[in-house]
């Protein structure tokens, strides 16, 4: 019965559509619709707390934001954070990947342990690091004092480094997994043949290793850049953007504008600028990746 119905042309075509309707509906109501609504809102002056009716102000929100030195400083803070974090994560991930590429006893267990930070909820990570950096009993503080002899108060003296290290701690394993996958994909005979050909290690890397890991590195960098760019919860729980605004990245600015100052229209405009930047970044990377 059912089978016959399925074969009739109309049902046959309608059935897949029928199947994806719930998913599409969910996306439309939870993503697309709020997005369009927010886009509309970004042209209005509106305060969600006061609940006055929105006043249409055209591009005023955008020009206000783009002309404010404050916002540009937030951009620079965000850029610094992303740059430091992603570069460090790449280096640490790269080193870890090479470490785990050599087969040793307990390798699997070690990989599992190293990748656990990926599984920890960001808020928990933020709270952990508050303790780790604690000026009196923090582990980090303790070890730094052991090495340099100085008691450092990370969160007030080096807040940017503090948030960067936290991100590096959590996300280097992600880089590592990608690079390790690339290393594993190198045919064994190519590695052996580079040894036979007596290539220097730098040439071995250039001609054998790099061509294989390049696409994966590009992909990992793309993911990490986009993700670091929109980091919110870890930084918010660790420093709340402070001290002052030293670690206030854009996502925190958006949050504050929207939910502390309740300048809703302005916040949505900023969020849209943010979105455009992420889309541009994505395209840039994809183009780079595709050129290979």
């Amino acid at each position, binding site marked *: 019965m059912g089978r016959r119905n399925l074969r009739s042309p109309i049902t046959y075509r309608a059935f897949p559509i029928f199947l994806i309707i719930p998913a599409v509906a969910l996306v439309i109501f939870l993503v697309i619709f709020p997005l369009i609504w927010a886009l509309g809102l970004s042209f209005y002056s509106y305060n969600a707390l006061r609940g006055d009716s929105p006043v249409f102000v055209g591009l005023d929100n955008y020009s206000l934001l783009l002309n404010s030195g404050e916002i540009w400083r937030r951009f620079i803070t965000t850029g610094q954070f992303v740059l430091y974090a992603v570069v460090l994560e790449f280096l640490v991930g790269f080193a870890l990947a090479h470490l785990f590429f050599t087969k040793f006893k307990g390798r699997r267990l070690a990989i599992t342990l190293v990748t656990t930070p990926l599984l920890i909820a960001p808020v928990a990570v933020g709270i952990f690091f508050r303790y780790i950096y604690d000026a009196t009993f923090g582990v980090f503080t303790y070890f730094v004092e052991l090495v340099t002899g100085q008691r450092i108060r990370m969160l007030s003296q080096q807040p940017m480094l503090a948030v960067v290290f936290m991100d590096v701690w959590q996300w280097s394993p992600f880089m590592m997994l990608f690079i390790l996958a690339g290393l594993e994909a190198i045919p064994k005979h190519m590695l052996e*043949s580079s040894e036979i050909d007596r290539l220097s290690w730098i040439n071995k890397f250039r001609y*054998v290793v790099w*061509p294989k890991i390049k696409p994966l590195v590009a992909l990992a960098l793309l993911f990490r850049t986009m993700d670091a760019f929109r980091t919110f919860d870890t930084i918010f729980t660790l420093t709340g953007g402070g001290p002052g605004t030293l670690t206030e990245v854009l996502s925190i600015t958006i949050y504050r504008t929207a939910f502390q100052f309740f300048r809703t229209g302005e916040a949505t405009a900023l969020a849209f600028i943010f979105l455009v930047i992420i889309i541009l970044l994505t395209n840039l990377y994809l183009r780079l990746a595709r050129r290979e």
Partner: protein
Amino acid sequence: MVSVEARAVSKFFKTTKALDNVSLVVDDGSFFCLLGPSGSGKTTLMRILAGLETPSSGRVYFGGEDVTDLSPSQRNIAMVFQFPSIYPSLNIYENIALALRRETSDPNEIRERVMQVASLLKIEEHLNKKSHQIDFGILQRVSIAKAIVRKANVYIFDEPLSNLDTKLRETLRSEFQKIHSEVRGTFLYVTHDQLEAMAIADKIGILNNGKLLQVGSPDEIYSQPANRFVAYFIGSPTINLIESEVRLVENTVYASVGDGYIPLNNKALKLFQTSREPRKIILGIRPHEISLSREPLHNALPAEVSLIESLGTAQVIELRNGSTVFRCYVDGLSDFKEKEKVYAVFNIEAIYAFDPKTDERVF
């Protein structure tokens, strides 16, 4: 170039015994071919000689010097693998030149040597291409070029032709001797193809189940096989191995073939004249050494033609006597028919006997 020696080399992979007490000496500048069926341990032996694998026991010597603990690059080995190993981001010229980096930095010398091997292997027209632009056969030539452009102590080729189609394989096979005489190095060449080995090697080593069964010139291997496996593995069509019983009758040794008997030569007489009892052996005779006739010649064995396989300019004729089946090779095209009764004449000087228990050759 140096001589290469393996002394009592064994290799275990977990519980698999890949090599079993292999000892081997390859002379300086010679062309040695390691021949054996797949899985016999050829690659493992070569990888141990190259330094890519460490032996479970035994040592490796180059020119009398113990190199067991040295890496492949310290041993200065050039090697061609079963699959081409070309660096994809470099073009062919650069690939070959890269192998020379450690030897010279003089651009003129590099250029000259690359062009020399390129012409030897006929790949000049591909020098500016990248690996994805040329086909597999050419790539394998490039791998060979990359190896022989160097001045290595030893050149190892691990079934370099086995992934090529027959025609290409034959062309390259015939070029290998020329390559060897130009490069003047110690060549270790692995193959599972006996024709390839017979065609190009100075010396052949036969490996089976991790054991080195025999080392000798192609002639020796063919005409004096050390045991049943070597006899069986070398020669085409395959040697006839016939279960037989020998007995002494009036000062002549006879061997049974099916229901009939053939006489054996004096070598057999010396060996068996003391024993009165019949003795079981495996009789070996190559199909080329049996001729057929319609006349009942003296000492000929009656047989029935059971199958005729044509090779174009020759025939392989399968014969039967009782329950024993053997094959003979006839040049040209004969007019024998299936089911026909014929007489087979065995060249008694070309008969081998193997011990059925140890498989060793008795004569």
